[in-house]
């Protein structure tokens, strides 16, 4: 092989490697936190994977959520706000019992958004379903439309809100997937708490990012959506259900 030919092939190989690596580098970049000047993008879809086999009988996720978001009650379970709750299931015939956290499932086709008369209930580009309390009139159509019972109405005056989580009487609220933390590049409070003090049953990540653990697990292991028959394409998926 002549030196010229060898050099030419070397360049070719370098160029090919560059082309092959570029998309991978792009993905790494996507996995980083957005800068505050960058809008939420449809390239990402945030989601949760909850392994019910690992979910123990604790309430760590519920406590952490309500602490992070300043969700306080008045000791009136019928009307107090509830962003996340533990649900217990029991097979009547075999007696097999399971427990799992249930919250807003961050649907791709959210019924709460369909029914909202003011456009306050909306889905952000990255898949997080939120209530814009500036336009919410408190009609509670979304509360009725949600098949997961994920939304709460604030009946009473609120004080002592967290700076990142405004809450006020007369509006509807639900799990925000800790959007203020996600925008900072952190994981939601429930996931952090579950991995620290709980059964390590929850994984948070970008459902579109092939490098993410949640993507790999959803691709290689069986998982279910709650009420998959409604074809809402939920962002929250369960295993072992």
């Amino acid at each position, binding site marked *: 092989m002549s030196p010229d030919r060898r050099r030419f092939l070397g360049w070719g190989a370098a160029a090919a490697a560059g082309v092959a690596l570029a998309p991978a580098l792009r993905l790494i970049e996507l996995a980083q936190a*957005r800068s*505050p*000047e*960058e*809008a*939420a993008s449809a390239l990402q879809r945030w989601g949760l994977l909850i392994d019910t086999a690992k979910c123990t009988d604790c309430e760590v996720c519920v406590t952490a959520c309500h602490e992070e978001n300043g969700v306080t009650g008045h000791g009136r379970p019928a009307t107090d706000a509830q962003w996340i709750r533990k649900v217990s299931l029991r097979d009547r015939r075999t007696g097999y019992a399971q427990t799992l956290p249930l919250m807003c499932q961050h649907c791709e086709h959210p019924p709460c958004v369909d029914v909202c008369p003011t456009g306050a209930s*909306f889905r*952000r*580009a*990255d898949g997080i379903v*939120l209530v*814009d*309390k*500036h336009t919410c009139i408190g009609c509670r159509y979304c509360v009725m439309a949600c098949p997961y019972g994920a939304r709460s109405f604030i009946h009473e005056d*609120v004080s*002592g*809100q*967290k*700076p*990142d989580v*405004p*809450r*006020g*009487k007369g*509006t509807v609220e639900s799990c925000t997937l800790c*959007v203020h933390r996600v*925008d900072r590049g952190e994981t939601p409070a429930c996931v952090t708490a579950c991995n620290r003090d709980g059964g390590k049953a929850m994984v948070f990540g970008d459902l579109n990012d092939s490098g993410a653990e949640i993507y790999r697990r959803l691709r290689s292991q069986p998982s279910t959506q709650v009420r998959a028959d409604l074809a809402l394409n939920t962002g929250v998926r369960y295993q072992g259900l």
Partner: protein
Amino acid sequence: MIRIAAGIMAAVVAVAGFADSGEKRAGRVAMPVIKIERGENCVAPVEEMRRNHMTMLTHQRDRTMRQGLRETRFSLKNCIDCHASRETGSVLGKDGFCSSCHAYTSVKMDCFECHTPLREGGAAGAPR
């Protein structure tokens, strides 16, 4: 002639009434207390802030809520961080930065029905 005289009379009475009510108002409503706790430079000149702060906040509110853009320049959290009182850590209250002007101009704001009026980290004795 009578008509012109009546007109002049009416004008005089109106002006006198206006001046009178103005005096009363000055006696009744306290002038706003504008105490700037921290930072000599706001995000825009004072005149512009006085006239347009509500537009800036509404614009930023929609960007943050809908698009997830968390620019700090016009964010309510950023305003509160500088303007909250050193003693109470709040922009509300008797001499609160927001509430004293809003009471004077009689403009109701509903930001703090949901948002906390307190600076993150509470009342700070010294400027941060």
